[in-house]
Each structure stands twice: as structure tokens, then as C-alpha cells.
């Protein structure tokens, strides 16, 4: 697992992808943070910033996950890693943690930096701030596992990226879809799987164990499915 993790991390920084990710992340998140808090007329309510940053994930998460598996399939390097003495779980988790380290690293670093002006010019509630950071981190990690799963389904990076974009948009917007549906059962279901409504507990300052378990199990399910996709290739590849 460590070998795969190291290789993926190196690959982020030997190609433009890692730098693009960092640049887009810091530029856009910094700008959004400034708009929401420091800008004259803004109400210094950082929970607004965290809710908006979720939409940045539509672009940046696919950037991290689009080639994680599809590139291996395309270049036939999957033959190397699947015949090496490591398990499929090692492969999938190695890749997952590499993407998570990129995302988590940038996000945590930015969160620490943005906390400084809040303390300098106001009295932020640290617990609420930390809760939001944890919540966003969990949402991001779930999106990454979905991205890896989609990447394992195709050998084309662009299909992989657009599929992930579609999936993230769907998950972010299903709760707004709810308003238009006049069926209680479907509404309950959509609210249940909605990322935004799960996340909203964190932005209210509630550390919801339900949501914690929801996000972790969402990641686990898609990582498990990715392992199954690898497994299936063994049986049906022609």
C-alpha cells in the first residue's frame, strides 16, 4: 500500500495535476473566504464559506481522481500492480489515501491560514470552526472514493472526470430537488442520501455521529466496489 501511495503522490507532482489542484484550490477558496468574511458588508459568518466551498469540489475532486485507475488500465500498468505481491485492497487504499492526502493537506492548511484573520479581527467559535472543517473533510473523502470508483470503470480519463463531476453535482443538488417532489417516501429517501443535509449538522455546530458514520460508510462502500471492479476484471477480461 505504501509503495502505491508513494507512487501516486509522486505522480501528482511530476505532472501538472498536483500543481493545478493546489493552485485552483487556494485561489478559489481564498477568494470565496474573502467574499464571505472579510469583504465589507459580509457578516463574518464563516459557515457560509464552508457551505460554498462544497461546490468547488465539483471541479477539484475529479482532478485528483480522474486518472487514478483509468490511466493504469489504459497504459496496462495494472498488469504490474495486479501481479505484484500485494492485495487489491492495498492498491485501492494506496490510491485513495494519496488523493485524500492531497485534498486533506491543502484543505487543512487553508483552514488553518484562514483562521488567523478570524482570530485577529473577531471572536470565532473554535469548536464550530473545527466541526465545519471535519465535516467538509468527510464530504471530500466520500467524493474521492466515488471518484476512484468511477475511474475504475473506464480507461478514459475524461469520461472518468465527467462521470465524477456528474455524480458530485447529483449528490450536492438532490436535497434541492426535494422541494419539487410530492411523494413523502422519495423525499425521505433523497434527504437521507443527501450530502448537503448531512453536512448541514456540522454547520449548525452539531457534531453528528450519524453523519460521521454516513460519510465514512459512503467512502467504504465505494472503495469496496472499486476492489470488486478489479476483482471482476480477473474473471471477465478478454
Amino acid at each position: 500500500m505504501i509503495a502505491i501511495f508513494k507512487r501516486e503522490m509522486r505522480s501528482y507532482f511530476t505532472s501538472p495535476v498536483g500543481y493545478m489542484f493546489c493552485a485552483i484550490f487556494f485561489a478559489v477558496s481564498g477568494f470565496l473566504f474573502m467574499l464571505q468574511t472579510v469583504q465589507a458588508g459580509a457578516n463574518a459568518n464563516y459557515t457560509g464559506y464552508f457551505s460554498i466551498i462544497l461546490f468547488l469540489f465539483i471541479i477539484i475532486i475529479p482532478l485528483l481522481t480522474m486518472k487514478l485507475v483509468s490511466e493504469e488500465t489504459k497504459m496496462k500498468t495494472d498488469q504490474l500492480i495486479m501481479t505484484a505481491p500485494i492485495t487489491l485492497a492495498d492498491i485501492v487504499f494506496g490510491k485513495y489515501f494519496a488523493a485524500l492526502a492531497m485534498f486533506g493537506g491543502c484543505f487543512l492548511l487553508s483552514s488553518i491560514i484562514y483562521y488567523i484573520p478570524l482570530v485577529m479581527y473577531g471572536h470565532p467559535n473554535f469548536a464550530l470552526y473545527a466541526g465545519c472543517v471535519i465535516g467538509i473533510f468527510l464530504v471530500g473523502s466520500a467524493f474521492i472514493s466515488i471518484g476512484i470508483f468511477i475511474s475504475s470503470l473506464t480507461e478514459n480519463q475524461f469520461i472518468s472526470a465527467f462521470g465524477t463531476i456528474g455524480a458530485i453535482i447529483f449528490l450536492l443538488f438532490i436535497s434541492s430537488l426535494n422541494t419539487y417532489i410530492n411523494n413523502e417516501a422519495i423525499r425521505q429517501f433523497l434527504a437521507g442520501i443527501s450530502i448537503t443535509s448531512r453536512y448541514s449538522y456540522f454547520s449548525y455546530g452539531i457534531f453528528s455521529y450519524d453523519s460521521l458514520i454516513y460519510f465514512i460508510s459512503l467512502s467504504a462502500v465505494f472503495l469496496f466496489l472499486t476492489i470488486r471492479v478489479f476483482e471482476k476484471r480477473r474473471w471477465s477480461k478478454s
Partner: protein
Amino acid sequence: MIKVEHLIKQYGDRYAVNDISFEVKKGEIVGFLGPNGAGKSTTMNILTGYLSSTSGRAMVDGMDILEHPLAVKRKIGFLPETPPLYLEMTVKEYLNFIYDLKKCSLNRKAHIEEVCRVVKIEDAMNRMIKNLSKGYRQRVGIAGAIIGNPEVIIFDEPTNGLDPKQIIDIRNLIRELGKERTIILSTHILSEVKAVCDRILIINEGKIVADELTENIEGALRGNRRIAIRIEGPSAAVLAGLKKIPGIIYAEISVEHEDGSATYIVESKNEIDVRKPIFYMLAQRSWPILSLEFTGANLEDIFISVVDEAAETADTKNTKRRI
């Protein structure tokens, strides 16, 4: 060392590998020979754990690949048909990655240098793989396969796409490696197996159609000995004379030359040497021999005849079934 029993790989109702069984002893170099799509790569992919078999067993050192995948994979070095290279890495990074991947516990730096020296890529250590030529890439792939000193090495078409000089280099390398290791290689180039392997397995349409030691294969598969002779003299009379010599089972004119001579192809039983009777017969009639050579039944002929035979038996079976 390697034991394969009744291996079957099915895709829908197509058999890629159909009931293959064979054994490879420790230290042997075995060549898989067969036309494209015969099931060579599939068999190798099953042996290395990349694919799963539909039924049957593949064992390395007594361990089933499906039951002990990690232990088996640790013993195998594999070079697939397309070398699995990460183009954005340098050769050194790539080999270090494989070293980590295989969880080797040798002296890292010394081992990687040693491997590079063996496959002659020391001068490309710090170059990006995407900038390397096909021959170099192939050798980097081989280097990857032999990292960690695996006991078994499996090469899928190792000389594919190389120039003649590189092919000779790689063949020498394989022979060198084969001194201490068990090697399976696949190819559709016949001279290659003859040059490198101790034993040849001919595979066609998912089945093993011949399994012979290299030195026996020509004799075992075709009992006839073939000579090409150029003789000056009236061709019809010469041919008739040749056909009368005892031991000759077949004779034909292959080329008539402008100087009045002709080249004849003569086939005899393997254990009979017909050169002397031919000489005396021709000397008696003063038809001089201009040249004489053994063409032998070459591997190409053997290969084609074996593959044809296999196809024919399959055909007759089918016809019988239809009737």
C-alpha cells in the same frame, strides 16, 4: 516448479485456454509457441495471477495461485506483452517503485544497479521512460521483472518489436538468466524458441498440440529427412533415377536453372542416409552434383504441420459429430 492441471479459461462460449496441462521443472527454460490468439498470453496471465481461470489449477512451487496469491506472486517476475511502464517516471524511480512493490529485502541500491547492469540500461537510469526507445523500454520491463531475484520468470513475447541486434542481446540475456532460474517465455517466432529454450510447448486454439525437448522436436514430429541437390543432366531422367534409389520416399524438381541443371528436393526416412547411393547413381551416368545440402524439416514446417494436424483432427471430429 510450475504445475498446470486442466486449465480452462472461457469467455462466454469461447475457450481462450482449453484444458491445458503441463509441468516445468526447476531451472528449465520453456517456450510457448503458437500463432497469435492461441492462448499463450492468457495462460501466462493466469499463472501470474492477473486473470483467474474458469477451472483447473495453476501451481508454483506446490502452491495454488488462487489459494496463496501473495506467496506465489512473490516468486514470479512477469513481463507482460506490453511492458507495464509508467512513462512519467525515470528508470531509477520506476525500478525503486517495483522494489517497494515487491517488498524486497535486498540491498536496494546495489540490487537495482546490478539489475540495470545485467539488462544494460545503466546509461538510461536517470532518463524518463517516455523518452526511451522501444528497445530500452523493453529492457526496462525485463529489469522490472527480474527485480527481487524471483525464482520463476515469465516473459510474454520478450523480443517483440526489437531490432535484430537487440533481439540477440535479449536472447543471450534470457539464456544467462535461465542458468539459475525457471523461465517461461512465449513467442510466435520459431527460431527464437529453438535458440533459447530447453523445451517447446506448441499451443494452438487453446490446446497444447506438442510438448517436446528442443533437440528432439524436429525428429519427433516429422520422421523424414530432406535434402536439396543441384544436379546437371536431363531433368526427367534424373528424377526417375532418384526415385528408384531405395530409401527415397519422395523426390521432386524444385527449380530448373538456365545452365541445364536443376535443383531437386529429396526426402528419405530419417534413419537412412541416401547421399552415397545418390552419388554413385549419378556418377555412373555422369550427371555431376553441383551442390547438396540438408534443408531439414525446419521448425516452420513442423509448426505448420502440427497446427494443421490439430485443426484437421478437430475437423474430422466435427464431421463425425455432424454425421
